[in-house]
């Protein structure tokens, strides 16, 4: 069903969703009390299709109130990856038959090696960069366009917005950010690159048909004749509801275990995350020391016990999206 890719997209952008729904610090990955005596089911690695790179570490040029890994200009808990770091894992990924590559941070374009990293990656497979759009200066956009044209594999960009005007966006991202993102998007449009704009369903009623139409108009306004919009419906039911029904779902999950169909909806069944500190189970849990599965990708080709609150959230959303 449609749910599979949709959910992966949703989780990729989980960072943007929490504030909209009133997610608080205390609701983060330890949302389920540790004393809860439920065994955590294992999720198998069904296929290693996607490899993530925490290419900018936790370094970002802005400091969003809701960032689930607290990226900021000064957070160095994960360092930037160098081209050499990426090359080592790409060689391993080639042997393992990885399908595609995703780059996130922090802000990927803060990494001075980013263009070289993309160039190398695109010789081996398609690449998608998740960016806040602020550093997309005309020259960088021109270089990205050239890379796009000469690569056999697809180069895609995703710019996530927290609203569709300065007021709603900047409330979360910080003052003046909207203006800079708009400039970046216009620069992209100027060179004919067409990013996917991601936005949460909770933002300004974009979940409704009218809201969507309005948002598509906004994207056209940036200069994109063929607007690509992904509305993420993660946590559609709201944080409060997630909490109140959460344990029930979790218990069901614990008792019945995961079927392969269930597992396929979780991105930890088809991906791993490379950071400067090693390889982690997924992009969401890189702040959890126990989610580091090993030094190399080969170390991580095994099941992972879903014992975190964030796992619960992934699961609840899965149920939600499939129905």
């Amino acid at each position, binding site marked *: 069903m*449609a749910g599979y890719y949709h959910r992966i997209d949703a989780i990729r952008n989980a960072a943007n969703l929490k504030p909209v729904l009133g997610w608080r610090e205390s609701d983060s990955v330890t949302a389920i009390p540790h004393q809860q005596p439920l065994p955590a089911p294992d999720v198998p690695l069904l*296929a290693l299709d996607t490899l993530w790179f925490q290419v900018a570490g936790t370094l970002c040029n802005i400091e969003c109130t809701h960032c689930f890994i607290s990226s900021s200009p000064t957070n160095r808990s994960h360092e930037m990856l160098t081209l050499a770091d990426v090359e080592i894992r790409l060689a391993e990924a080639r042997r393992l038959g*990885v399908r595609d590559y995703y780059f996130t941070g922090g802000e990927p374009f803060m990494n001075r090696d980013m263009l070289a990293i993309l160039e190398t990656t695109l010789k081996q497979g398609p690449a998608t960069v998740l960016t806040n759009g602020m550093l997309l200066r005309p020259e960088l956009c021109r270089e990205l366009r050239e890379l796009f044209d000469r690569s056999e594999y697809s180069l895609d960009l995703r710019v996530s917005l927290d609203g569709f005007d300065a007021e709603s966006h900047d409330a979360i991202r910080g003052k003046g950010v909207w203006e800079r993102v708009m400039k970046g998007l216009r620069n992209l449009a100027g060179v004919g690159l067409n990013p996917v704009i991601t936005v949460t369903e909770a933002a300004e009623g974009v979940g409704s048909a009218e809201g969507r139409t309005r948002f598509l108009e906004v994207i056209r306004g940036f200069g994109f004749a063929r607007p690509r919009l992904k509305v993420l419906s993660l946590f559609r039911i709201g944080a409060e509801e997630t909490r109140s029904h959460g344990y029930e779902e979790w218990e069901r999950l614990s008792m019945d275990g995961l079927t392969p169909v269930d597992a396929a909806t979780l991105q930890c069944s088809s991906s791993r995350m490379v950071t400067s500190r090693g390889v982690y189970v997924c992009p969401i849990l890189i702040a959890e020391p126990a989610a580091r599965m090993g030094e190399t990708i080969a170390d991580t080709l095994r099941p992972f016990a879903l014992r975190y609150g964030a796992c619960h959230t992934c699961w609840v959303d899965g149920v939600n999206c499939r129905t």
Partner: protein
Amino acid sequence: MTRLAFIGGIYSNYPALVATLADIERRGVDGSWFLGDLGAFGPHPNRVPELLIEKQIPGIQGNYEESLSSGATDCNCGYTDPRDNAYAQISYDYTAANTDDALKQWMGTLPREIRMDIGGLRILLSHGSPRRINEFLWHSTSSEPFLERLCEESRADVILCTHSGLQWHRRLERNRHVVNAGVIGRPANDGRTNVWYTLLTVERGEVSVEFVPIDYDHQTLAREMRAEHLPAEFIETIETGWWTTCLEILPAKERAHSKF
């Protein structure tokens, strides 16, 4: 030398199937197969399966045959965009309502894959991919290492698939190949009205692939679609060669060549 013809998604495009079969017959091949998705998009969904049965052409289930034969409420196409899904639902509801039960039952008897050995090459026919009936395999996002893995895991040297709607061929190391046969149901989003099927030739262990453009009476099809009140967007695609729906699933590269 062995030459085989593969027909990807037909989407109830009966005139295109007639033209394709005529072309195959004219060229002469050692065998022809369809790769699933006989219905969707076009009008009068009984005609295509009836003709395939009459001509005794073998083939496999697509997600459409799986859904129709099991009484599912949607096509399980795998789209993620609400607009794409809305149009997919129109196609499916129309097709489900207008396909005879006997044909639905016949669809349920089709295999999900076919394997054969041609001159020592293991050939595998699948709909989306060998591992998932509705997996979209695109040229720009199917990396060679990934396709090598698919070949390895499915124990095949040559994989044929369809489902995504655009034809391509990747030649891998050790004489392995993955071929998306394209579709004859609708044009390939290139501003031309023709559709494509695929010829695969094996000669002394060497594989070559030819994508064959087929011109057919698309005006008649458009007229019939109008008479059946199918969406104007679908008819526009048939008349112009540009996709108007199901676009959001396209990777950046394929989308860049798209009109919409």
